[in-house]
């Protein structure tokens, strides 16, 4: 509503008939959910052709920090395969799913696109991603990667694999040594299990320091050892005794003041902000955060400790990043060649040397860089994470949509607020999620 368009005398001119016009106009502007199409019209049939021509490559929030690495990588590829041209685009972390769904709906998904398994699942289901197992050239790449990582892109209910494994991450836990010491805790002994996390949390809370900035998410249930879903991934099961036990402990922590005041409405971005402002003592972060702390918060960086997220069952969470190939790509041969090039042993390892992530290629984690390392905290964490990674599991169920994650969050909040018992909250969350799952 720009004021220039609105004459002050319009009030007098409004007849009831024009009421309908206003209402209609209003509704029109708010019902802008446009139509969408799917299906796989067009696109080259397979990846067996000549590696030549133009492709588009989309990464997920990597340009800001690693521009030079990717420009070098692309130049190497173009040199290796003369006549190819890679256009690189990078999309911000926020709303990445919206970007993907808009692109996929208009059949404009970039030829090579950075996805995680939970994002790949709806795309694969809608036929927007190429089934790598069904393509001779692409399937040959399988032996290039760790078997678990390759299997990480299998989708329940669908045949085949839908992405080339790229970098792996255990999701480190950052902690603030200054705040730890304030509460009489040893800055060099971060919590390793959930029991330690909760007992640390109590001590921190006594000094009015909140431990965490978010309510427990599905990965926390996984690391605690809760069975999240049944074997066929058709029903959620995290309302079992173990799940209730974890929620009870979180509730106690919340009542002690161990969670930030905004924890119930905060997402990971908000929690990251709170950690940067030293308002919370611990935060599960991405590997990319450390570089950003170093540059933006040198004061905080000095006090940061890095460890693996607390874990009760010896199987840490594994975040898998992959490169999918668009089903509508006009140039699948080049797209597959480029995706394989980016995820080959040499390039994955050199990327992992720059960023605190881990390569998914076979044998890489046995390299000295990930088995020996130096004495700095980063080195020690890297070696211990790499060891854990061999036993890691991707806990985030790929069938769990954002809506189902919101359901869990909502019910957890209700439990914290005392509106529901932990058991009731999880029962309701599971029931509602299962109902949503049936509709898919």
């Amino acid at each position, binding site marked *: 509503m720009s004021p220039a368009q609105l004459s002050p005398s*319009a009030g007098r001119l409004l007849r009831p008939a024009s009421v309908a016009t206003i209402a209609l106009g209003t509704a029109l502007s708010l019902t802008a959910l446009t139509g969408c199409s799917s299906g796989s019209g067009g696109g080259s049939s397979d990846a067996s052709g000549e590696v030549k021509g133009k492709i588009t490559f989309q990464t997920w929030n990597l340009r800001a920090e690693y521009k030079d690495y990717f420009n070098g990588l692309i130049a190497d590829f173009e040199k290796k395969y003369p006549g190819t041209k890679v256009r690189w685009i990078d999309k911000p972390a926020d709303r990445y799913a919206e970007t993907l769904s808009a692109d*996929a709906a208009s059949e404009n998904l970039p030829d090579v696109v950075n996805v995680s398994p939970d994002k790949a699942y709806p795309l694969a289901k809608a036929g927007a991603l190429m089934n790598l197992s069904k393509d001779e050239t692409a399937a040959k790449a399988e032996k290039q990667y760790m078997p678990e990582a390759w299997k990480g892109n299998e989708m329940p209910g669908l045949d085949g694999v839908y992405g080339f494994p790229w970098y792996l991450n255990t999701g480190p836990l950052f902690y603030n040594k200054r705040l730890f010491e304030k509460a009489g805790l040893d800055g060099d002994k971060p919590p390793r299990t959930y029991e330690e996390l909760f007992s640390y949390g109590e001590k921190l809370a006594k000094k009015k320091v909140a431990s965490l900035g978010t309510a427990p998410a599905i990965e926390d249930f996984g690391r605690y050892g809760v069975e999240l879903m049944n074997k066929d991934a058709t029903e959620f099961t995290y309302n079992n005794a173990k799940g209730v036990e974890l929620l009870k402990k979180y509730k106690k922590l919340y009542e002690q003041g161990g969670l930030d005041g905004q924890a119930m*409405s905060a997402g990971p971005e908000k929690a990251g902000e709170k950690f940067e402002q030293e308002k919370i003592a611990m935060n599960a972060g991405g590997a990319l955060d450390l570089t950003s702390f170093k540059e933006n918060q040198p004061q905080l960086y000095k006090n940061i400790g890095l460890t693996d997220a607390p874990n009760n069952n010896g199987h840490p969470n594994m975040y898998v990043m992959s490169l999918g190939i668009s089903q509508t790509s006009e140039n699948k041969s080049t797209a597959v060649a480029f995706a394989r090039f980016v995820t080959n042993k040499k390039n994955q390892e050199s990327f992992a040397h720059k960023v605190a992530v881990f390569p998914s290629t076979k044998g890489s984690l046995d390299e000295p860089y990930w088995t020996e390392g130096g004495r700095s905290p980063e080195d020690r964490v890297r070696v211990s994470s790499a060891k854990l990674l061999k036993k890691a599991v991707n806990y985030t169920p790929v069938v769990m949509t954002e*809506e189902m994650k919101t359901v869990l969050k909502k019910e957890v909040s209700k439990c914290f607020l005392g509106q529901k018992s932990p058991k009731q909250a999880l029962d309701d969350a599971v029931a509602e999620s299962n109902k949503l799952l049936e509709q898919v």
Partner: protein
Amino acid sequence: MNSTASASGPPAPSAGAAGPPSAPSTPSPDSPASSGSPGSRSSRAARRGGARVRTHRAHSPWLFLLPGLLITLAFNIYPFVATVWKAFTDARTLTPGSFVGLDNFQEMLADEQFWIGLRNSFLYVAAVVPCTVVLPLLLALLVHKNLPGIAFFRSAFYTPVVASVVVVGLIWVWMLDDRGLVNAVIKTLGFDTVPFLSDRWLILLSAMLVTVWKGLGYYMIIYMAALGNVPRELHEAASVDGAGPVRRFLSVTVPGVRNTMVLVGALSSVAAFRVFSEVFLMAGPDGGPAGEDTTLVMLIQRTGTGLSGRVGYASAISLVMFVITMVLLLAVFAAERRDKK
């Protein structure tokens, strides 16, 4: 938002009225056929002069309208029709879906979040509209006299309107944070921290404050123009009769701008019912603790977007919102008409 404003703007003079006054009063033989086209009168006038000069053809006006029509069709009419259709399907962002009848509406009745959204949207209207109808009028009274330097204050009051709602919202989020500016002041005064951004009612209240604060300047401008139309003689007559400033405000100013108040009421109630940005920023994408601060538009955004967004269900909620908005407006104008009688 533009469609609201343009729909309520003054109607353009009709093309027929623009014809020359010398148009013949006796109908020419071909008039029934040609009277439908806006250009008929001028072409007839030209023919009477003897020369057959056609200044424009029957379809010319449509050519001028074409760009606007196409844009309206593509960006307003088509999405609207598509939304109505999709409300009866189980479409998702990546799958077209099939017809499911009234399933979506049945699900809505049982959806706790829908009722929370409906409640919050109505609370928003109930709390925000009275403020945006009354406060800007007082503000306009304050600045409508031409005093030296008054332009500065007018601009100052208008500034929040120009600022982006996201930027303004974020600034308020920082100020209202547990360790933000506002709480720092409260603490210095010796009171406890107020959980503006973690208590569900306070979140809603904070968002309402931002909406009112941001809307003040906009509605103030509308009122200022209306105040200029209130005859000064009435004020003078009232003063002569011994009416004080309060009495004159209630008996002269308010009736004089009543139509504008109805307009402001209508506009702000629609805007308040559709609130999104302020609450989204204050409460977070999940709508605050346990989703208790979700508004209807937030719910539409949350269910209808993303890779597995339920477009069908979100469309059904949109449709319900459309009907409610319509009823809301009709109610405002019905009240206005009854008043007149």
